[in-house]
């Protein structure tokens, strides 16, 4: 199957895929800093005018969500699967 071969192809070149992804990330953050490409008149607040503001926001949001949720889960929310069966 072609789709499967494509996935296998990408997996076999894992390192290249990672570099491409990092390149895309850098490009996205870079483009945000070029006024000719991204019109910041549509920004809602001043802070959004900082270059790559939303990149930082996205990364911090992700880390925050994972860490806060895990801390919340370990505070007694996560429990064994048969908790309600006993």
């Amino acid at each position, binding site marked *: 199957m072609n789709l499967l071969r494509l996935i296998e192809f990408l997996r076999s070149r894992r390192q290249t895929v990672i570099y491409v992804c990092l390149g895309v990330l850098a490009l996205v*953050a870079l483009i945000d800093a070029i006024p000719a490409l991204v019109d910041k008149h549509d920004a809602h607040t001043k802070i959004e005018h900082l270059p790559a*503001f939303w990149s930082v*926001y996205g990364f911090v949001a992700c880390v925050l969500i994972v860490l806060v949720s895990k801390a919340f889960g370990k505070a007694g929310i996560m429990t064994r699967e048969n908790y309600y069966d006993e």
Partner: protein
Amino acid sequence: MSSFWLHPSLILIAGALLLPLMPARLKQGWLLLVPILAFARILAMSQGVFGEVRFLQFTLVFGRVDALSNIFGYIMGLMCVLGTLYGLHVKRAAEHIAAWTYVAGSLGAIFAGDLLTLFLFWELMAFSSVFLIWFRGRKESLGAGFRYLLVHVTGGVSLLAGIILTYHGTGGNLAFTAFDVHHPDLAAWLVLLGFILNAAVPPLHAWLPDAYAEGTFSGSVFLSAFTTKTAVYALCRGFPGMDVLIVLGVIMSLYGVIYAVLENDSRRLLAYHIISQVGYMVAGVGLGTELAINGACAHAFAHILYKGLLFMGCGSVLHMTGRSKFTELGGLYQKMPWTFVFTLIGGLSISAFPLFSGFVSKSMIVQAGFEDHKLWVGFGLLLASAGTFLHTGLKVPYFIWFGKNHCAKDTWDRAAEPPWNMMAAMAITSVLCIFIGCYTPYLYRLLPYPADFEPYTSYHISETLQILLFTGLGFFLLIKKLEPTPTISLDLDWPYRMGGRAFLWLAQHPIQFIDTCVGEIYRVGGLGPLMRSSRLSGVFDNRVIDGAIDGFASSIRTLGHRLRSAQRGALQENLTLAFAVGAVLLLAFVLVFNAFAR
């Protein structure tokens, strides 16, 4: 009564009733035909008020067709076609009947022009959809179904109480229009409570992940679409601009995201993301501006499709492998690559990637928040959207189709692409998700207000790509922390699940103890003396009453016995003797009487 107006729900209910009578060779055709007819009926409806029926002192309005009800009716009809196609091979007719009745309830509520008709169809939804949970057949499904039903009945009672108070408060006017959101009375609060319970607004949300994760593989596709989005419609109609909904909506959007991090069951994770996504819509209703209401409607439309697609993807894994937990799956791209692609499209749509449906709908609500100068709404919802991509776009596809292979041998052997109808349903839904994202007029023309909104600006594309791609970076850096564990997460169903258990404990221990004590007191203090007194009564009965009666009877018998010996069978002699005795007695009486009279 107005002239006959064909309600689309009627087509579904009639189709459901006739389904068991269909010969096997026509059944699949019938299964496709009925929802297509219902959808065609919705498309053909012109706007206006139809189906007015006088009942007692009420005027029931079954067909209020306007821009708001039209968009919700349209997407419900479309999802019914896709959901039925997905479950086309399900042999149990009752499951299709339950699903269609459920959709009929949803359409009935959407086109209802008065609160009583709304309530009627509202309850029909609850009582038909529960079968989509019970038909899974597991012990856990039975319990989850009962909890689902009890919670919804409670919400229904609140709604009914609100309707009754509205009836008295308005002097008999039950028209379903906007409540006074700035000065809500008790009736409005009770109706709102009924609505937000169905919309799964915390703390009234726990029924949703509890029930939807336990539904049948195709039943959960229906469940994911209808109940919460019908509630969103009802909120758009009844409570636009109610401030408290903004706060609740933002809390919802984050609440679902937090729980999704902890979740090990793929369908429970998706259920938590329904709560998160409905949070956007609830916040949109709370903002209440034309852009926000348009956003809530557009997002409900897009959400029904991409969430249906996600449940189809995870439902396919469940159907083919019998597993839905991340700790029992992994590496399935080798066996189910197309299911992976379809689920990924659902994941990219819900995450609002450019060119996918969520991008053109979610951004309207975020924009409405910023335009209303409520920055915390905009930033809060964007925070939640990072979480959405983290789980639905990354965690679900990664831990099912890639990651460490946790599949047991039988799971791996069973794994394969699902039947053609499931693949077709997923493919069509995927195309629709991309089509909506690419060609905005299709969705925007259906919105209740004129849509003057352009999602594809350079700033918005850049903003979205940065948030999502850097969330992706965070995911891969923190992947060790996100490794699934075989655990469950306690949620706010804990009070009533443990409350039920506490009641059982009360019944089995203190109440049982009191019952035993009362029984013992009765036995010692009541039963003993009662036995003794009855024994005495028995003795009295035996010795005195029976003795007297027996003695009397014995005397009669003895007398009779003696008299018998006096009988010789000579009638003339006996008569002579009797008359003689009579004459002697008479003579003696006369003599004695005369002696005393003198």
